[in-house]
């Protein structure tokens, strides 16, 4: 009888395991993308570029062979313009579908630059699907990763307007480690 109760409890409670997807950028790399002058959209895209190994996106903030530094505030058509100019393949998504795009971006390990906070863009840095937690790196405080509940994240995203930028192309691998599997 006790066994049956245990089985029923497991079936009812469902999946309690935690599965967290996270970028793995060291703090010193994230610090490159600190927002000094109101360039939050480029900072967020740049951080995604470093994670996804897209140099043209990584180096948006500076004068490099990929183009001149892109500074200041941005809007969807400006992002489209400099992505086209630099050949940065990305999904520039606005409207009601941004939530499902952010879910996709987190699940596939690409992550995203997302509207987060009043007149602000931040980096969608991770997601804990089991516990419905979202992780965000604010380019005003790149030394830490902020954790949000689903409701908190929804409010954060809604405050900025529904707009996300996701770099296209292959997803980057996890940082490799040796484990003796053979």
């Amino acid at each position, binding site marked *: 009888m006790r*066994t049956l109760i245990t089985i029923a409890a497991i079936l009812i409670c469902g999946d309690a*395991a935690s599965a*967290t997807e996270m970028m793995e950028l060291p703090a010193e790399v994230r610090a490159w993308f600190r927002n000094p002058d*109101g360039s939050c959209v480029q900072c967020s895209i740049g951080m995604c570029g470093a994670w996804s190994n897209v140099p043209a996106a990584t180096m948006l903030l500076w004068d490099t062979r990929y183009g001149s530094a892109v500074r200041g505030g941005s809007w969807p058509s400006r992002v489209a313009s400099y992505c086209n100019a630099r*050949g940065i393949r990305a999904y520039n998504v606005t409207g009601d579908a941004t939530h499902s795009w952010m879910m*996709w971006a987190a699940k596939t390990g690409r992550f995203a630059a997302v509207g987060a906070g009043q*007149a602000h863009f931040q980096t969608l840095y991770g997601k804990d699907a089991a516990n419905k937690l979202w992780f965000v790196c604010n380019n005003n405080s790149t030394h830490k*990763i902020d954790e949000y509940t689903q409701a908190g994240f929804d409010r954060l995203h809604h405050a900025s307007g529904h707009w996300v930028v996701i770099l296209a192309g292959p997803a980057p691998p996890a940082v490799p480690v040796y484990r003796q599997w053979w």
Partner: protein
Amino acid sequence: MNAMLLWMTMVFAADLNVPQAASDEVLRRGSSVEMVGIITEDDILVALGPPADDSHKWFLTVITRPGCSACALLKAEWSIKPELLAFARPGDPENSWSHYNVYRSDDPTQSFRWQGIQITEYPTVLVQPPRNGQYGDPATVVMQRSGYAGGAPSLAGAIRSAVLAYATRQPRAARSVQVVSADVGIAADAVQPEVVSAAPPFVVPGVEPVVQPPFVPPLAPAPQVPEPPSVPQGDSLAVLLSLLFSLLGSLFGTGMLTNVLLVTIMLLSAIRTFRKATNQKLWLSDEDFEKLLAALKAAAGKPPTAPRQGL
């Protein structure tokens, strides 16, 4: 005074971060998805939903070094050799079996990736399992092979052998949990505009000339593929059927409860396998499912055994 400060903030913030013009444009665009980076009409996506989930794809990573002729040969051959294209299609991620990424060893923006592994020769090819956890921790190095002197079939064979050997040993374990660094905390906002430099805080790698095959490759590749032990292969369907018949044969004999529990285990396993195969949401994590099986087996009077492939 407060009103003055607010007014000044609004004025100076007008062209920073996400200005009002951005909010207005977001509203004007409504629900839209625009593919940018390539200027063609076909890249305007009409479907609003995201692309298919590709977290089931394996990862193939090539680490190169500037001036490395073997690296250039490998990259060039990966674009034309059918054996390698079968595993990854450079420039065509949607139709590629794996996520194919090429990194440069001298790129300071990517050096954080290689802290946990040893690279002795270039090019180095890494194989890692999918991100969805179907085959365990996606960080695991399934294969590392260094050097390339041509021989696409040999490299493809090594990749194939490593993937098969690794997959055979994986009980489709629960997703690994990546532990976040301790700097997770509470959000804080405060934009402080400051004078910024237009120079990047790192050395930007230079342009690497493209080398086209064929050319004479260097000798002595040094494969570093882990040698997995051989695994006995069996007909799992036949084993399953024979087990089912033997159970049914004694269902109404002694130990009826035991048999009922064993049949229950088989049914649950079959349902789980079907739901996994059809990408349906699983009722239980692999860990919980193993606990359930262990509990059922304990109730049936049998000791728990190692999980079978595919459960």
